[in-house]
């Protein structure tokens, strides 16, 4: 089934929803695997917040694109090429250092994005954002605390954070990319120009990494394509697992 989404605002809300959903699913994969009980609880709590944010944005997308699709339709009935999340959120969990660093990079961006969206000309988006800002501030705090402990911790934890940083950093460029969709929503006042979030993000992430004795890597390559449905290999496996039950038993409820 090909689901075509019409209108810049609808594509924009779908991107945000997909970012939240995919990151939520990645974090949920930590359930029962985190290094401490507190962090098992923390990562799955964050996953639940993100799932709630995703649901609200899928619901808004369904109104904006006029299809009246359900949240489940978006989540379970689209193929890889129809997902428009950024590549960073789909990156595999790796070790705890990789997950924490991905959280720092993502939640800092999401917090700024939600803050900007509280002033959206779309009332529903602004309402979702005003709640999400508070939730995401806790997510960023959690990632910041752990980045400091691991980066400025033992030789082993420092080495793992350095290696996570080298692996994840190239994927951050995509967060700030503009295209015709972001241009249109910025003109409409629906959402911020992605580039406008860059300096605050650089400043916060740079400060935390500095305090964690981690050096910002030199950017060598800038992988991109998520917003156009071109994803990394691990994403297909994630979707297959996530969608399996729903596709095997269409309409299943529990």
């Amino acid at each position, binding site marked *: 089934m090909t689901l075509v989404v019409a209108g810049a605002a609808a594509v924009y809300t779908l991107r945000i929803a997909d970012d939240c959903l995919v990151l939520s699913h990645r974090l949920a994969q930590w359930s029962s695997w985190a290094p401490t009980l507190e962090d098992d609880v923390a990562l799955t709590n964050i996953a639940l*917040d993100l799932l709630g944010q995703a649901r609200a944005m899928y619901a808004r997308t369904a109104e904006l694109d006029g299809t009246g699709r359900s949240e489940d339709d978006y989540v379970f009935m689209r193929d890889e090429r129809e997902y428009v999340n950024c590549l960073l959120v789909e990156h595999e969990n790796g070790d705890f250092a990789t997950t924490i660093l991905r959280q720092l990079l993502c939640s800092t961006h999401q917090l700024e994005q939600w803050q900007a969206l509280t002033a959206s000309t779309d009332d529903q988006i602004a309402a979702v954002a005003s709640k999400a800002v508070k939730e995401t501030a806790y997510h960023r705090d959690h990632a910041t605390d752990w980045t400091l402990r691991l980066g400025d911790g033992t030789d082993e934890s420092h080495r793992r954070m350095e290696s996570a940083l080298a692996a994840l950093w190239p994927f951050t460029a995509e967060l700030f990319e503009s295209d015709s969709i972001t241009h249109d929503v910025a003109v409409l006042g629906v959402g911020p120009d992605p580039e406008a979030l860059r300096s605050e993000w650089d400043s916060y992430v740079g400060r935390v990494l500095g305090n964690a004795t981690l050096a910002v890597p030199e950017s060598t390559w800038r992988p991109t394509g998520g917003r156009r449905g071109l994803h990394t290999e691990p994403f297909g496996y994630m979707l297959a697992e996530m969608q399996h039950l729903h596709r095997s038993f269409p309409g299943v409820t529990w």
Partner: protein
Amino acid sequence: MTAIDEIRRAAGAIPDPEMPALTIADLGILRDVRVDASGHVDVDITPTYSGCPALDTIREDVERCVRDHGYEDVTVSIVLSPAWTTEWMSESGRVKLREYGIAPPRDQPFDLKPLAIAVECPLCNSPRTRELAHFGSTQCQAVRRCDACGETFPHFKEH
């Protein structure tokens, strides 16, 4: 008593599924009750957190409660704007929360900065407490320990 008052009182007394010591009126989850000329009842509820899993249960509880009071034609809607904050929790709700063993949210607006007011231990009332974990057994709670009595306790986060 008007129909609106009756429904508001009955629905407002529904316990929160995750913190049954508190009602949905105490928490500020019940937002509005309207009855039109044809007898159709509209009830608005609001989530405390975006992904709060209790909301679907609350919605069903409210529908059942209104029907049990003789109003068959009822629609329960989830409203997001304006967004819920802990400031909407009633004073009696805060007292009940403390009696239940959960430190209530501090009376200060959320501003993305650490709050200066101490969180008091709900067991011994000492202000000397510290956070053990941001995230607790539900989305709205953190876990703290009291340095005076040594007990750990949940804290309803400012939000």
